[in-house]
C-alpha cells in the first residue's frame, strides 16, 4: 500500500540570464533571455508506509524540488502525484495535518519567544488534543534532551539546540509522513549522529514514512535501506544501498601493507594502482579476478597485511554523477 505515488513528475522553471556588470543589469530591464531549467524531468517512484528513503544527488539534481512538490509548495509542470491519497498542491487541511516538512535552515519558530510558545501555536494550528500534545512533547523533549531549554528565547539557543526545537515543532502533531531536507547540514559530528539516531528511532516507534535528502553519505548509509539517486532531474537508481555497489561497481579494492621489497611495475601488472605509498598500496581489480589476484600477490610479494574492500559508496556515486560508465 503506497502512501506516496509519483508518476512522471516534471517541473520546469523559466529562468532569465543576466549578463554580468552594470550594462547587463540595464540590458535586462528591456530584453530578457529566458531559458528552461528542467529541475525535475520525468521522475516516478512509489513509497510504502513506514519506509525510510534517502534521496541523493548532487546540487541542482532536483531532490529539493521533488520534496517541495510532494509537500504542496510547488505546482508541477506535469505528472501525477498522490500523497496519502491527496493531491499535495491542493493544500487540503486534512492532508496538511498528516505530514511535516523540515528544511535545514528554514526556521518556523518565533525568534524572540521561547520555543515552547511556538509548540503551543502549532498545537492549535494542527488541532492536537491537550493530552496527546503533552505526551508527544514529553517524548520528544526526552529523546532530544532539551528539557532545560524550553523556556529560553529561541534566538539565544545554539544552532544544534535550535534545530532540535525546530524538529519538535515539526513533529508535535505526530505526522505520518516526514519530509526532511538536509537534516544534518551545518551540524557538528556529535549532533549529526544524534540527529540520525533520532530519525531512526522516530521511524521505528511511529512507523512514520520518512523521505530525506542529503549530501552526506553517512546520513544515507546509516539510515536508509532504500536509496533514490537523482541527477539533472532524472531518476538514476531506486533500490537498496548495497545494490548500488553491485550495479554500478564492477571492481573491488585490495589494500596492502608490504613487509619488504616492492616493485611498482610488478604490482601494476596485477591491477590498476590507486594509491602507492610504500609500504602501503591500494590496487583496483575486476570483481571476477579478485581472489586470483589476491592469491598471486601473496605468492609473489612479502605481505604483512592484505584487505579486500568494496569501493566506497561515495566514489561510486561520484562516478555515477559524472557520467562515467562504471557498469
Amino acid at each position: 500500500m503506497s502512501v506516496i505515488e509519483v508518476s512522471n513528475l516534471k517541473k520546469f522553471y523559466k529562468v532569465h540570464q543576466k549578463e554580468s556588470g552594470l550594462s547587463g543589469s540595464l540590458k535586462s530591464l528591456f530584453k530578457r533571455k529566458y531559458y528552461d531549467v528542467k529541475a525535475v524531468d520525468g521522475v516516478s517512484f512509489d513509497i510504502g508506509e513506514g519506509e525510510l528513503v534517502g534521496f541523493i544527488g548532487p546540487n541542482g539534481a532536483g531532490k529539493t524540488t521533488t520534496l517541495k512538490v510532494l509537500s504542496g509548495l510547488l505546482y508541477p509542470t506535469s505528472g501525477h502525484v498522490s500523497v496519502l491519497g491527496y493531491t499535495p498542491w491542493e493544500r487540503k487541511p486534512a492532508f496538511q495535518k498528516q505530514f511535516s516538512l523540515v528544511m535545514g535552515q528554514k526556521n518556523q519558530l518565533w525568534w524572540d519567544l521561547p520555543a515552547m510558545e511556538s509548540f503551543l501555536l502549532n498545537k492549535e494550528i494542527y488541532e492536537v488534543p491537550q493530552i496527546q500534545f503533552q505526551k508527544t512533547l514529553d517524548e520528544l523533549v526526552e529523546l532530544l534532551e532539551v528539557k532545560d531549554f524550553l523556556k529560553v528565547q529561541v534566538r539565544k539557543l545554539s544552532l544544534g539546540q535550535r534545530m532540535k526545537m525546530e524538529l519538535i515543532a515539526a513533529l508535535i502533531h505526530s505526522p505520518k509522513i516526514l519530509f526532511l531536507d538536509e537534516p544534518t547540514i551545518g551540524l557538528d559530528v556529535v549532533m549529526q549522529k544524534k540527529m540520525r539516531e533520532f530519525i531512526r528511532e522516530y521511524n521505528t516507534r511511529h512507523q512514520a514514512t520518512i523521505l530525506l535528502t542529503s549530501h552526506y553519505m553517512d546520513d544515507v548509509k546509516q539510515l536508509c535501506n532504500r536509496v533514490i539517486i537523482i541527477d539533472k532531474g532524472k531518476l538514476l537508481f531506486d533500490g537498496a544501498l548495497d545494490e548500488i555497489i553491485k550495479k554500478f561497481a564492477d571492481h573491488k579494492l585490495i589494500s596492502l601493507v608490504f613487509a619488504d621489497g616492492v616493485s611498482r611495475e610488478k604490482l601494476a601488472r596485477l591491477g590498476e594502482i590507486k594509491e602507492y605509498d610504500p609500504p602501503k598500496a591500494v590496487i583496483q581489480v575486476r570483481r571476477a579476478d579478485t581472489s586470483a589476484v589476491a592469491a598471486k600477490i601473496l605468492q609473489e610479494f612479502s605481505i604483512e597485511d592484505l584487505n579486500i574492500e568494496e569501493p566506497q559508496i561515495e566514489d561510486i556515486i561520484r562516478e555515477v554523477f559524472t557520467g562515467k560508465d562504471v557498469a
Partner: protein
Amino acid sequence: MKKYFTIFTLSWQDELTYRLNFVLWRVRNILRLLLTYFLWSGVFLVNSKIAGYSSSQMLTYVFLVLVVQSLVLSAPSGDSMGGEIGSGDLSNYLVKPLNYLKYWFTRDIASKCLNLGFAAGEITLLWLWLRPPVSLPANFPALMGFLALLICGIFIYFFFEASARFIAFWTPEYTWGLAFLTLVFIETLSGMIFPLDLLPAGLKTILDFTPFPYLIYYPISVYVGRITGPAIFVIITKAVIWVFILSRLSRFIWLRGLKVYGAEGR
C-alpha cells in the same frame, strides 16, 4: 478558531519582549502628534479659519489622527509579508493548515489593540497638558459612523497593503522602494498629515475615487460633524465597497502569485 487566539496572544508577547523598542515607538508617535499640534497652533495664531476649519476643529483633527492612525495604519503585516515571500519563509505557512491572510490580519489586530491601549493613555495625558479645544462626537450617529468607518479603514488598509506586498511573488528581489512609495501615498493621501479639504477641489475629487481618504480623513470628518445625516451612510457604503474590491484584489493576486511561487531560499 482557537489558533487565531493563540496567534493574538503570541503577538502581544512578541511586541512586548523588547521594552526599549516599544517605548521608543510610543515616544515617536507622541512626538509626531505634538509636532503637528504645535504647527497648526502656530498657523492658527495668524489665521482664524483655514479652508473652513476653525482652530478648535483643526486641533481636534490632529488629536484624532493619533487615535485613528494607531488603529488603522499600524500593521506589522505590511513589513513582513513581502519579505517572507521573497525569502521563502512563506513556505513554512503554506505547508500548514493556516490561512496566511487571516494569520497576518490577526497579528495586525493584536498590534492595534496594544496600540490603542497605550494611545488612550497618551491621549489622556496630552489632553490634560495641552487642554486642546477638542470636542466629543457631534451626536450618536456621528459616533456610530466613526466606528463603522474605522472598521472599514482597518480592512481597507490591510487588503491594500497585502495587494501591494504580494507583488513580491514576481519580484522577489523586493525593493523597499515600493514599500516607501505606498507609505508616502498613504500618509499624504489619507489625510494623516493634513485634512484633505486643504487640497484644491479638483485634486480632492480625484482622491475620492481612491481608497485612501477612507483611512483617516473620512472617519474623522464624520466624528467632528463635517459630514452629517444621510451623507454618513453614503460614505460608509463607499468604504464597504472599497473593502470588497480590495479584498477580492488581494485574493486574486495571492492565488496567481502562488502559482509562480518558487519556494526559493534554503
